[in-house]
């Protein structure tokens, strides 16, 4: 049958059409979808290695003028609960993480119109000077376009200046669902899909690798999720600049949008179809923070070859009501418990075996 043929083709690296992916996502039995995705992952990486990065997220400000309805973290300008960290405070957090072996920091916040590009340039320069071994994998497309608007510059010029200051790579946040209809409903003031992709293209052309996320489970249809995968795959055909795809699901608690959390099965199916459809994106990352360690572990059988980061400090997701926390040891335990071998990597997927835990 045609659908089974499509699954077989994708399991060995062949390309799925958008229509095939929509049908497989909706109709393929979980175990067949999972087996195909896992087969593809083992074809790409015929090893039990599962990578992760020691990193931290520093949410330097919660002030934001984008006002996405799925977000519980942001505060509008002049709100009593708004905060912006000083450079010293950010540097304290970087030190905290670096002391625990972090090789990557993700400095991410709201789009705070009071912060100019020089604020970031000075911050990044200090981080680079004081912690030369820590890679700055920071900001999101929204923050880049926010700065571009304030500074009356193009996003590309903003990226070039920040890169000069020490920004090494761009996380794929803020992609949500790269479909106009969905963005109008959940993040009307955020960059449009083509703008988001354009900034990523700029970053990649400037030599900055980037990841790409998908936030699923709010108001989009399954077909719109596949459309998201398709626009990512199209850009990747052109640039080959995405290192990893990171699907995570919407956490509805405490957000204005409310709604229901996606099921664990939906999470695993989404991972599997992503691995099969994105034949040109090297890595698929398990996001244990929202689904929890149990599903994060099972993700390793549905196409994931990477456990993401240790996220030594995190604010955004916790504010939306997720209570999961994991230490390095916990992450390694679940990876081993699934029959895989945890291996530390850096932002560029260089393996760092010298950083293995002493007990390993």
């Amino acid at each position, binding site marked *: 049958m045609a659908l089974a043929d499509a699954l077989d083709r994708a399991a060995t690296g062949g390309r799925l059409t958008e229509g095939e992916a929509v049908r497989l996502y909706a109709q393929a039995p979980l175990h067949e979808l999972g087996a195909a995705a896992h*087969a593809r992952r083992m074809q790409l990486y015929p090893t039990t290695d599962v990578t992760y990065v020691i990193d931290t997220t520093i949410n330097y400000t919660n002030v934001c003028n984008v006002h996405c309805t799925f977000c519980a973290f942001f505060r509008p300008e002049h709100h009593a609960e708004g905060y912006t960290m000083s450079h010293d405070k950010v540097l304290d957090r970087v030190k905290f993480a670096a002391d625990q072996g972090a090789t990557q920091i993700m400095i991410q916040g709201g789009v705070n119109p009071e912060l100019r590009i020089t604020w970031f340039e000075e911050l990044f320069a200090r981080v680079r000077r004081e912690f030369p071994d820590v890679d700055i994998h920071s900001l999101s497309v929204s923050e880049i376009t926010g700065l571009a608007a304030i500074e009356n510059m193009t996003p590309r010029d903003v990226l070039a200046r920040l890169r000069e200051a020490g920004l090494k790579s761009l996380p794929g946040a803020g992609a949500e669902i790269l479909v106009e209809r969905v963005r109008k409903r959940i993040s009307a003031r955020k960059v449009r899909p083509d703008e988001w992709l354009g900034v990523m293209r700029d970053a990649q052309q400037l030599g900055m690798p980037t990841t790409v996320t998908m936030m699923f489970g709010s108001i989009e249809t399954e077909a719109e999720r596949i459309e998201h995968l398709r626009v990512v795959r199209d850009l990747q055909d052109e640039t080959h600049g995405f290192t990893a795809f990171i699907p995570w699901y919407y956490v509805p608690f405490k957000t204005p949008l409310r709604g229901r959390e996606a099921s664990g099965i939906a999470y695993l199916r989404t991972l599997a179809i992503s691995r099969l459809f994105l034949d040109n994106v090297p890595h698929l990352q398990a996001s244990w923070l929202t689904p929890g360690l149990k599903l994060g572990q099972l993700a390793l059988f549905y196409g994931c070859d990477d456990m993401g980061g240790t996220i030594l400090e995190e604010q955004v997701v916790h504010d939306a009501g997720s209570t999961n926390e994991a230490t390095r040891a916990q992450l390694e335990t679940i990876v081993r418990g699934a029959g895989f071998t945890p291996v530390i990597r850096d932002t560029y997927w260089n393996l760092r075996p010298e950083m293995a835990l002493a007990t390993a």
Partner: protein
Amino acid sequence: MVHVTDPALRAIEHKIDEGISLSREDGMALFRTADIHTLGRLAQTAKERKSGKNVYYVLNRYINSTNVCYANCRFCSFAKGEKDAGAIRMSADEVIAKALETGTNFNQIHIVGGHDPRQLSLDYWLPVMRRLKELVPHAQLSFFTAAEIDYLARRHRLSADEICAQLREAGLDNINGGGAEVFAPRVRALICPNKVDAARWLEIHEVAHRHGIASNATMLYGTVETLEERVDHLIMLRESQRRSPGFNAFIPLAFHPDGNELSHFGWTSGLDDIRMFAISRLLLDNFDHIKAYWMIQGLKVCQLALQFGADDMDGTHGSTDEERIYHSAGTQSAQHVDDREFRRLIEEVGYTPVRRNSTYETFAFDWTPDSGAPAELAHA
């Protein structure tokens, strides 16, 4: 299109298709396989052969009538001494009031407690059971574990046969599956040295079955036991079911680590949970139901379990119920899931929700005992 990456599973699939019970070696192969997709497919196929697209649940009340217990099981976060702060012991009237406080729209009252020298006696329980049978005749009484019945029998110097006869006469419909833990004597010596042993646990269930009392069975996994000991536990249950049929469901119980002496074992992993559901479905070929009790492994894992062999999600619990055994041990589950949400959770997985009672008689969704209408069998 079938990707079987572990050849050992081909032989097992063949045995399953032929209706041959799996061996201890087969069980170990299933615990050791990395091919979880084939494991899942085999378990889901076995589930659908047993129950088709149905997934069962019960509208029930859940009551922990006492937490006073002198068994001192090391995995327990619930038990208290009589004089400890936090000791909770309900009077007979309180138990009855609790059961009825939100009306009578339920088909089961589930009660377990501790080995409480004051409460756990026939003088306390027989009148409670008789009164509940009068007040809510449509509700089945799913009371006690075999550990509690063993305590009752010893306290009243009665044989298993005599105690089961008295409990049945007073209205007991079902014995809960707890207290089984892991049957291996090595494990029991380490985690529950003062509890009923395996032979006695099985004897009580087998005798109860002969008296027309149904029952469930459990295994507490995730502490000191080996995989071999898990497999042996399942095979002992299968043999018991052959000797004296009457088990309805098997319920794998994941160890919870908060606030007990075995905390260092931590939480069970997602893979371990899923394997337990699938392997119990495949090994227990003479059990009709495998239950993914939503409160234990959590809603997300239990929904997934429905595709790994489970066909039951246990009960709603009442909106004012307070489960204390797993909540003392760190579960983040809610106390209650309402009827509509239960059905939605099951339908989301692609299955058909079916309301049942303790003995798996099924009911139409629109039937409520409050309306006075007779129970109507649903097209299950």
